[in-house]
């Protein structure tokens, strides 16, 4: 096979010469983000790029996985965690820059279903009569939303009753997938997920009272390798600034004071 050269050599030369100039003024920020916040972070990053010209690179995974990657030297500049514990551990280990840790959002739980059978009963009622139906929650051993789900169920006095019908998602994304695909009739998911466009329309949706579970505080931290990277600090400032806050609230999160 023969490749023909279409592009003008001058254009390529110009691009090659310009590249280092662009790179100096506009840096690339690698953002490691907890899966529940990935969609929000992608939108925030797009606006941030439009405003500042700094490119962003979003890496989404569970907080536990990102944490393990960071302590093993993963090249991330910023961590947007799903909890407060992992950023604190990173700060203590010297892998996060001291004093850069802040709460950027508080997650909220929603009981959700697409099961037609639940439509007349309502989500909350259905929880009392699961029968052979499954309730999907995130794994309390690995996911903050799972801890919150367990706290709510314990608070409601339903934990022992629903336990045999629980299915555990590896993270909140898989939990959503279990209930959105109809494999689980009910699911305790993040409110931020209810806005996902591809989601089938729910037959019921019930916002779990926030007093029934410990706050799902999500913290961000600047990582040590980006300590002197201006674009990374700029991204965190954008996140906690008015524009970032508006986008976070728009995705179903509560804001820190």
């Amino acid at each position, binding site marked *: 096979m023969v490749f023909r050269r279409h592009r003008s050599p001058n254009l390529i030369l110009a691009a090659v010469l310009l590249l280092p100039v662009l790179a100096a003024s506009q840096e690339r920020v690698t953002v490691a983000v907890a899966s529940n916040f990935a969609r929000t972070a992608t939108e925030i990053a797009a606006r941030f790029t439009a405003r500042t010209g700094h490119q962003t690179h979003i890496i989404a995974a*569970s907080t*536990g996985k990102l*944490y393990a990657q960071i302590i093993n030297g993963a090249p991330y500049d910023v961590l947007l965690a799903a909890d407060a514990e992992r950023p604190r551990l990173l700060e203590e280990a010297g892998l996060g820059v001291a004093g850069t840790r802040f709460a950027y959002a508080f997650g909220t739980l929603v009981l959700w279903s697409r099961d037609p059978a639940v439509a007349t009963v309502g989500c909350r009622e259905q929880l009392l009569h699961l029968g*052979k139906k499954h309730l999907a929650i995130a794994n309390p*051993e690995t996911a903050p939303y799972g801890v919150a789900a367990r706290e709510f169920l314990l608070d409601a006095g339903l934990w022992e009753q629903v336990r045999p019908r629980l*299915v*555990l998602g590896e993270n909140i994304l898989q939990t959503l997938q279990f209930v959105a695909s*109809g*494999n*689980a009739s009910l699911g305790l998911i993040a409110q931020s997920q209810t806005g996902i466009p591809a989601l089938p329309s729910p037959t019921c949706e019930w916002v779990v009272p926030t007093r029934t579970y410990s706050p799902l505080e999500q913290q961000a931290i600047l990582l040590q390798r980006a300590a002197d990277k201006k674009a990374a600090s700029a991204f965190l400032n954008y996140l906690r600034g008015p524009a970032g806050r508006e986008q976070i609230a728009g995705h179903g999160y509560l804001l820190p004071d």
Partner: protein
Amino acid sequence: MFETTSMGPLLLSIRLATTTTLVLLIIATPLAWWLAHTTSRWKPGIQATVALPIVLPPTVIGFYLLIVLGPYGTIGRWWVEVTGDALTFSFTGLVIASCIYSLPFAVQPLQVAFQSLDRRDVEAARTLGASPLDAFFSVAAPLSAHGFLNAIVLSFAHTLGEFGVVLMVGGNIPGETRVISIAIYDHVESLDYAAAHQMSALLLAFAFVVLLSMFVINRRLSRR
């Protein structure tokens, strides 16, 4: 809160692998026999289908199973109507998934063994008045012993090491679908490395013993 001992998930994995292996022997034996002797023009197509799980990532198999076995899927809906319970997130669902996932590991060793049989041995039994089934069990099967051994050990071991498919259709239910690979993954995720080490070592030792026994028995068989 959940079961934290190492033995529970390991025993569940062994139960899953044993059940899968038994079911696979029933399915794979006639299939391998047919593949070994047929001249049908469908043979390459069937062979390719059987070998698919070797090539496909577990996520593809898991994704399709989640859809087909789920309450809105063809098989899943029928299952719910008959039994009242969902097929996904159940031990039965895992057995079905594992049988598909490990099918080539049962069929291929058997097919190779059947192909290397001397047809005259089987034909001699037939001329002496044995029924086809009788001839198979008294002549062909014993002569293919190492093929059966390989099929059993490989299906068992492959199911024991299953992770991706179970992660997608299992739902992580203790005693039902939380097999040892999932339990180890959870411990690593929650930074409980001590428990992860304990379970991994247990699985490592067990897998080594299983494979070692296979090679020891195989050597004895080939010396005979």
